[in-house]
């Protein structure tokens, strides 16, 4: 029995599922630093166990947010985010045996796209396979009652000052306006793309063991606020290679293609697709290439067709479709077309059996991103025309 003798039935103790624990350990091994591996392990135990319990008994609609950033994000920051309705709960685990303080990394408090309404202090005892939710605090209470520790960029609050009865959270969260639970955020810097590239270059290596303390928080926070930038950062830390550079589409018109972009005929062998492709390619000056993207166990094809219109513009058609032999996407899929500043300019989604098509025009030198989300995983492709 995993329950320790010191557990009161009124404590918020949850048991960790052994199969999940084994899987979490295995998955955490993919992270590039020792600290990141251990942090990912604790966070995954915490997130999965809490989420299951909350869904089962208290908040049926609870879901993990920023899933596409996990587990890589845990190479830099402790904590994870649960969403329910319009409210966000940050889970902040610790494996300290004395649970004297809730220590919240500033990222969850001052980055606009990360900020939570409530912070849950979670003690994880991986040896006993139990976790204990010690209590919670609102964003406002944390900032107003706690103190900011500049040495490790955290907001800290003594455990004795948390609200320990989680029933109060279930009963109240829907009643409050954001203003009642949240207070002002520290302003972040505005980063230009070259600045972000430079930061990613500098911090995107596993040799940098303390990336979050390396540059001023206003810059670090701004970098992590942008989903595309932070994914590149953590991807680069993990793979040791710079994230793939933007695909240069104008080169395609000269017959030069980056690795990974295959001729469409190699790929879509099934007759209707091949026919569609042929009809597209038959148009004058049209180039068509496909990239194979892996989502978990499955995969899908991203097809880009390109045609020059006059001297300054190109017409771009993108299709997301099942790959050969499968006839279906790995899961419901969403595609977003984004500017480099991360503004959404086009968006479409599909169920498993459909394909997605987007058509637009772009000028030479213009840059854009295509973000594909499937089975809670997100892959971003960058392009320069």
């Amino acid at each position, binding site marked *: 029995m995993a329950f320790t003798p010191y557990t009161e039935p009124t404590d918020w103790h949850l048991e960790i599922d052994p199969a999940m*624990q084994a899987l979490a*350990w295995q998955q955490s091994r993919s992270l590039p630093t020792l600290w990141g591996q251990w942090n990912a392990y604790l966070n995954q135990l915490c997130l999965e166990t809490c989420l299951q319990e909350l869904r089962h008994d208290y908040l049926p609609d609870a879901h993990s947010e920023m899933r596409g950033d996990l587990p890589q994000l845990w190479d830099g920051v402790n904590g994870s985010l649960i969403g329910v309705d319009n409210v966000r709960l940050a889970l902040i685990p610790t494996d300290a045996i004395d649970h004297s303080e809730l220590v919240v990394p500033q990222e969850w408090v001052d980055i606009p796209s990360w900020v939570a309404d409530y912070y849950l202090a979670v003690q994880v005892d991986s040896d006993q*396979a139990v976790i204990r939710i010690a209590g919670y605090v609102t964003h406002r209470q944390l900032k107003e009652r706690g103190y900011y520790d500049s040495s490790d960029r955290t907001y800290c609050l003594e455990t004795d000052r948390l609200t320990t*009865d989680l029933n109060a959270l279930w009963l109240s969260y829907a009643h409050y306006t954001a203003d009642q639970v949240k207070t002002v955020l520290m302003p972040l810097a505005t980063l230009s793309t070259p600045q972000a590239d430079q930061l990613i270059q500098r911090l995107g290596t596993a040799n940098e063991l303390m990336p979050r303390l*390396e540059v001023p928080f206003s810059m670090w926070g701004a970098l992590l606020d942008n989903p595309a930038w932070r994914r590149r950062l953590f991807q680069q830390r993990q793979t040791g290679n710079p994230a793939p550079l933007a695909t240069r589409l104008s080169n395609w018109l000269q017959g030069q293609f980056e690795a990974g972009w295959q001729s469409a005929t190699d790929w879509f062998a099934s007759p209707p697709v091949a026919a569609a492709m042929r009809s597209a390619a038959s148009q004058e000056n049209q180039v068509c290439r496909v990239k194979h993207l892996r989502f978990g166990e499955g995969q899908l094809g991203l097809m880009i067709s390109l045609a020059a219109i006059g001297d300054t513009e190109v017409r771009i058609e993108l299709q997301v479709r099942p790959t050969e032999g499968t006839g279906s996407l790995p899961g419901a899929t969403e595609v977003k077309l984004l500017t480099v500043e991360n503004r959404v300019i086009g968006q479409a989604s599909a169920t498993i059996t459909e394909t997605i098509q987007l058509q637009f025009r772009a000028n030479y030198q213009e840059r854009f991103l295509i973000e594909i989300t499937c089975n809670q995983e997100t892959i971003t492709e960058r392009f320069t025309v």
Partner: protein
Amino acid sequence: MRPREQILDLFSTFGQVEVDHFCQWISDPKLRRSMQRCLLEQGATDSEKVWSLYWYKNWQNQNQGLAALHLTAYLQEPCYWVAQKIWRQFNKTEYTLADYLQIASAEVPRVLKGFNVDRGNNLKSFATLLLTNVLKDNLRQRQSADICSEWALLRKVSKKRVVEAMQQVGLTPPEIEELRFAWVCFGTLYVPNQPVLNQTSGGERSAQPGAQLWVAITELYNNKRHGQAIGGLDWTADQMTTRLAKLARWIRAYLYPAIDSLNQAKSGQDTSELQDDLTDPTALSLLDVAIQQEETDQRLIQRSHLQTVLQQALEQLDASSQELLILFYQQGLSQQALAAHFRTSQPTVSRRLKKAEECLLSALIQWSQEQLNKFSTPDELTDITLMLKEWLIVQYANTPAHPRP
């Protein structure tokens, strides 16, 4: 144990426990003189509440040792009940009832710090609530610390405790900054290499840090310390090893002292070190406190309404939930015992108890919403949850000083 009745005794005597039973109340001469003087100067009210508030307010004003000692004496009954409950529940551990009483008494400052007088709550029931949790937490920590090597312990304590342990041994702020950052570097590189504790290999799952690791930790420290505004010189790997080993020893001594060496002053037995002249010119007068007490009495009226609300909500619970509450709050049954009683699993018992408490809390929130014409703020809500817990303790307590309302 026969609870004390005289005001003089309440604030100047301590319980003496032999291994497993209560012996007698022992008077502390210095505290007795201090209390006699106050009774003489301040006028002799025999309200226990006013006197406890008087010392509490003085403790808040000055944070002085004397007030804390009087309050530790005052809170001996809750300390004893909690100690007895825990001792009965875990009588297999190596600690005696006397040990538990000593740990509980030593944690009184934490009770004082957490107590909010404006809530109009009762210090004794608040102490019972907090000390039960604190004592269990303390035991849980000791158990974990016992099976940790020095190096494992070092990475398993909180930042706050690390800093406190350094302050305790009298390091200067710059020394603390350096060593704290060294501790951070240690934690960045020294992590467990197995998913769970390996019971067969004697409870260790991280290899002892080897020479190579010490070099890496030292390099990290020397490279990063400038960016962190840490002064001093670069460290050598030997210095790193020695200094962190020392830190580990300080932490163990600070956090988990052998119980028989617990700071006796905290439990009020060596007040001889205090100045004999115990008068404090800045102390609040008892009259001020009595006026404040009247204000709190207004809240007490509200509390009696609140009790009616809770009583009604309680009666609406199904019979088995009511039984569960009685067995837990009145009989003090453990989670295991409750699970056995209801022939179900421990998590199920835990869930059902929480659901029962959720019904009560919900009634309380609704009532306060009607009173205030608005939903309670998050801060008020925290107070409401504490009110409920205290009410449950008082409601079900069957000890003499906690009469059923």
